[in-house]
């Protein structure tokens, strides 16, 4: 463990600033890289000194910049959702994709597209909040009726089963209403379709979700010590959990409505973050956001490199990174109660 960082506030601030700088550089790289290579200096010019007559500036402004920013925001949201879920449930396997939350959101999106095709971007986002909520409720209901309680592994299995069921239902709807293409896109996860409107959606819901997350950060640290300790310290655990779930729903819902199901990101990043900055959620939440953003921006670049000039769904890239990690965690916690 990097305990010297855990103890020093200055070092934590430095870690975060360094990550932020790398993130900005990665966003620049993501913008520069593509079908037409663009110099990093041109990227900078397009941002500070936009010239409408230059094609490269237009490509940057209309296509690549929104995509890179969306990748950063979606990555940040999924990572923070994962951090909140892991902190609240003290379950190392908790994360939006494993617990079926993302599939719930995708299911709701398909329903909206099938029955209310006129719905706006905003309507779609709200629907994906609701879908994510339904999935969370289902998974926790299964967990709480279980014979030997909520072991981390069981909760994960319940999430996978419910996720499979929801995505099967989405498949049927998609086949019936000829929405396979949209559904395929959501289930694979991708950032190709992002524009400035999606960024607006992400920024508005993200601001709300992140404010709630930071508000309850300290309470999550306490909750993570155990509910008894939290109660002893006079904390209203129920309220914290409700707020936590609301912020998870908002963050995950917004992320899925823009980029689809991107697996394993929300699982890995919080573990990584805890390893680097320690167990205080006041640090874990902002640092998770930065690490998650960095990871998704880089994964997005990789997804464009694997099979250039075609794109590979970024969800496949994050899965390949995340699976070995998941297996490591599954070996550690499988079957035993935490």
């Amino acid at each position, binding site marked *: 463990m990097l305990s010297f960082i855990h103890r020093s506030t200055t070092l934590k601030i430095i870690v975060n600033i360094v990550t932020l700088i790398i993130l900005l550089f990665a966003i620049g790289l993501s913008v520069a890289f593509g079908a037409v290579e663009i110099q990093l200096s041109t990227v900078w010019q397009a941002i500070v000194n936009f010239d409408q007559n230059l094609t490269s500036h237009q490509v940057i402004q209309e296509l690549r910049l929104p995509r890179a920013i969306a990748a950063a925001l979606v990555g940040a949201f999924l990572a923070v959702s994962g951090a909140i879920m892991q902190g609240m449930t003290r379950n190392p396997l908790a994360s939006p994709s494993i617990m079926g939350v993302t599939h719930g959101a995708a299911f709701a999106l398909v329903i909206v597209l099938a029955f209310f095709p006129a719905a706006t971007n905003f309507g779609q986002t709200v629907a994906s909040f609701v879908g994510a909520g339904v999935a969370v409720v289902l998974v926790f209901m*299964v967990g709480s009726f279980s014979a030997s309680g909520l072991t981390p592994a069981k909760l*994960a299995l319940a999430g996978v*089963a419910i996720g*499979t*069921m929801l995505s099967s239902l989405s498949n049927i709807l998609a086949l019936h209403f000829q929405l396979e293409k949209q559904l395929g896109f959501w289930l694979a996860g991708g950032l190709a379709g992002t524009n400035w409107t999606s960024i607006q959606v992400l920024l508005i819901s993200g601001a709300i979700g992140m404010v709630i997350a930071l508000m309850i950060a300290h309470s999550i640290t306490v909750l993570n010590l155990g509910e008894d300790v939290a109660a002893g310290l006079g904390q209203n655990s129920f309220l914290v959990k409700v707020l936590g779930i609301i912020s998870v729903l908002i963050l995950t819902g917004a992320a899925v409505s823009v980029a689809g199901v991107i697996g394993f990101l929300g699982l890995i990043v919080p573990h990584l973050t805890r390893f680097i900055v320690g167990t205080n959620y006041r640090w874990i939440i902002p640092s998770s956001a930065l690490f998650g953003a960095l990871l998704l921006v880089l994964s997005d670049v990789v997804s464009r490199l694997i099979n250039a000039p075609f794109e590979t769904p970024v969800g496949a890239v994050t899965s*390949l990174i*995340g*699976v070995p990690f998941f297996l490591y965690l599954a070996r550690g916690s499988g079957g035993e109660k935490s």
Partner: protein
Amino acid sequence: MNTEHKKRPSRFVGIILVLILLIIVMFFVTLSTGVINISPMEVIKTLMNQGTDKQELVLFDFRLPGIVLAILIGAMLSVSGVILQGVTQNDLADPGILGINTGAGLAVVLFIFFFQDTFNSTASIFMMPLFALVGALFAAILIYSIAWKKGINPIRLVLVGIGVNAGFSAALIIFQLKMNPQDFRQATVWLSGDIWNASWMFVLALLPWLFILIPYALHKSNALNVITLGDEVAAGLGSKVEKERRILLIIAVALAGASVAAGGAIAFLGLVVPHITRKIIGPLHQYVIPISTLTGALLLMVADTIGKNLLTPTQIPVGIVVSILSAPYFVYLLMKTK
């Protein structure tokens, strides 16, 4: 107890007869339903070689191979599930959930990707089960060795299976996108568990596997009974536990692999059927294996008919129907498992 034991053989024969009768009824129901309606009487006429040309075409070239394939795949996946559940003493085992199907699917896709052009189409259909078997075996060994930690814990095994499954799926997506469009479509058919593009070639390619492996499994049912009692009892009874376990595992994996090669990457079927069968006839594998063969075939035919007729003209892949019907049962089992 003793009288119960004596009654069993006659009960067994009775159940077999009822199941065969039900399969015959379903056979005609499935044959006569679909986008083009052919009444059961006309089906019989056509089978007796007295139908119109159009009816002959629809029945012999489209529906009949699909139904026969459903029967074969249903039988093979169910027996695979019976063996996996017995050998791992795990109620939650199933070739689909454990990732064995995806391993086989990945091998098939790699085969199409690298070797399709080397062989003519007939040879490649017969080669596919072999490749699928290699992939399935690789997946099984991988899962087993990752999940091994001073023994195999049921939940950990399933959890590791899900992780490996996700990794293979991601690799699949990446490879699929590198294919040319025609191969891509062919590969997609396997992964969704779609059996309607069936042809008699697939039936022929599957038959030898079925006729060798299922009787062999039946022959090994005593060993399976002993293993189910637990390692210590089995060793005490003089059974070479590890050797028998390995042989049985290979049979199960081969059955699953061959089904996947023919287009039956159907999750949850091998999970549910053994449970239903044990409820009907008790735990003795001499009875469980034959009855599972029939229940599996029947269940897959029913699911296929539902998928075809629920939302006509939309046809729902049978794998999706099975998932929706069985995922709740998985959740129920999960809640009971300690």
